């Protein structure tokens, strides 16, 4: 493995078996993620982008699903390793945030409890140490009044704040990789921009690699150096973001870019 390479996905295939005819949702997915890099994964609904992300996070464990290929993290294949090996990686080395910050938090548990959960599982820190770590982390994701939020429930926070909480919980163990699955889709534009800025800053300061999944090409352009375009389960194009934006090779990529309304002076 290359020295800077932190995650390597080779020939990932995902098949559903919940109907009479098996349905492949991801074909031959390859990905090299390097330390401190932000890679964008773009596609429309049903393109297989979220499925690939869930597989990398080790969250595709349904029995009616078949996966082939390799997802190598630190010499461990996430697809085939033992559950307890996988659990040591989840939350500790790989964090994930989702589209709906409302439903992704347990409605009956306090924010503090949920943010420190990964610490409870992966570290031997005392209760007090954990508390200070959580407060520090909440401040780090730019939540003011962290002490109060620690004792609040998810329904008492706004959408943007909840997504910040999700990021704090995913980043609490300083993971090497953060997977962000459409993290700003449910948010207003101004909040969206703030969250993107936050992700950029965390990436810069902590050297966390980010896999950023989105349907929004212009958003990916703001955040990612490298981008992969998916359609119908296939990666159709991959490369430098600006390169792809300015000279898309594949017809589908061209179509996607053309579909973004342009703001240029009419007169």
């Amino acid at each position, binding site marked *: 493995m290359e020295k800077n390479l932190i995650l390597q996905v080779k020939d990932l295939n995902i098949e559903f078996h919940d109907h009479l005819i098996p349905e492949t949702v991801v074909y031959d997915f390859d990905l090299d993620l390097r330390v401190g890099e932000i890679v964008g994964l773009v596609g429309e609904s049903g393109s297989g982008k979220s499925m690939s992300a*869930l597989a990398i*996070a080790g*969250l595709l464990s349904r029995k009616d699903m078949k996966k082939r290929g390799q997802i190598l993290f630190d010499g461990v294949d996430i697809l085939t390793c033992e559950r307890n090996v996988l*659990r*040591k*990686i*989840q*939350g*500790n080395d*790989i*964090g*994930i945030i*989702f589209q*709906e910050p409302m*439903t*992704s*938090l*347990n*409605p*009956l*548990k306090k924010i503090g409890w949920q943010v420190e*959960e*990964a610490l409870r*599982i*992966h570290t031997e820190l005392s209760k007090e140490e954990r508390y200070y770590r959580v407060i520090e982390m909440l401040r780090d994701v730019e939540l003011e009044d962290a002490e109060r939020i620690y004792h609040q*429930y998810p*329904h*008492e926070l706004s959408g943007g704040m909840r997504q910040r909480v*999700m990021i704090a*919980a*995913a980043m609490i163990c300083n993971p090497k990789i953060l997977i962000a699955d459409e993290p700003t889709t449910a948010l207003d534009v101004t909040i969206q921009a703030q969250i993107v800025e936050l992700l950029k800053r965390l990436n810069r300061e902590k050297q966390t690699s980010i896999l950023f999944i989105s349907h929004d090409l212009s958003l990916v352009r703001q955040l990612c150096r490298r981008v992969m375009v998916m359609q119908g389960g296939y990666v159709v194009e991959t490369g430098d973001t600006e390169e792809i934006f300015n000279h898309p090779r594949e017809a589908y990529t061209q179509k996607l870019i053309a579909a973004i309304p342009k703001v240029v002076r009419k007169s």
Partner: protein
Amino acid sequence: MKYAGKKLLTMFLTLFAVTLFVFLAFHVISGDPASSMLGTEATPARLEALREEMGLNDPVLVQYARWAGRFLTGDMGTSYSYRMPVSDMVTDKIPVTLTLTILAFFMMVLISIPLGIYTAKHAGGVIDRIIYIFNQIIMAFPPFFSGILITLLFGRIFKLFTPGGYISYEKNFWGFVGYLFFPALAIALPKAAMAVKLLRSSVIGEARLDYVRTAYSRGNRTNDVLYKHVLKNALIPVVTFLGMALTDMIAGSIIIEQVFSIPGLGRILLTSISNRDYPVVMAIIVCISLLVLVVNMIVDMIYGLIDPRISVE
């Protein structure tokens, strides 16, 4: 706290409405209590005198207030058929029905919670399917029929108890509880089957939600996800069901008391209905209503404790 106060207020309002309804309904239907009491000895003069004495010539609401006031002090009126105070007939029966119901309730909880969690965890497995079939059949059993079968099986064939051999709680409390074991089982079984089914589908439904995926993404074990995250959420609808089941059991015990010849509230309620002994019927219905309302109130309180969203809404 505000939530609790609101619920308490609602409970008292409902109690007021229920008792007023019961009073008015029986007032209209029961005709003239004076002539019922005097029976063949009635003469117009004696009737009028008795009516005046009983306050039957006052406006209905005044009569209701008087009746409610007496009820609160423990005076539930006089039985037409037995010419004795209703309270004497009812008070020593309440513990019997209550014990039977509570016993059945605990059986239901003890059977259903572990089985519900087990079947949810092993959904689709062989044992899950067997339990499903078993559940469906048990739910189809009318409680009195399971009562009859239990009598036949455990009473007559295995001789684990003596059918009809009721032991009063005043004589031997544990003997009393022992006798109530099988009747309680007959009440508990169908409700337990429903609770297993509900808890199973509730846990499975919760497990599909996004926050469960989040919990797994932090490296939780399956059991930790189940017990620390899912279970509390899944119990919310089950608590409602358990509350309703408890009130249903109070009513169900009326029937089961018949099967096992237990002298509880159900027994006198039924005799009083067929004798048209309205003061007794009214008193029992008000007592059961009170129990039902208290149970509902407790369920609401438990809700408030489990779910932080409630006190805000």
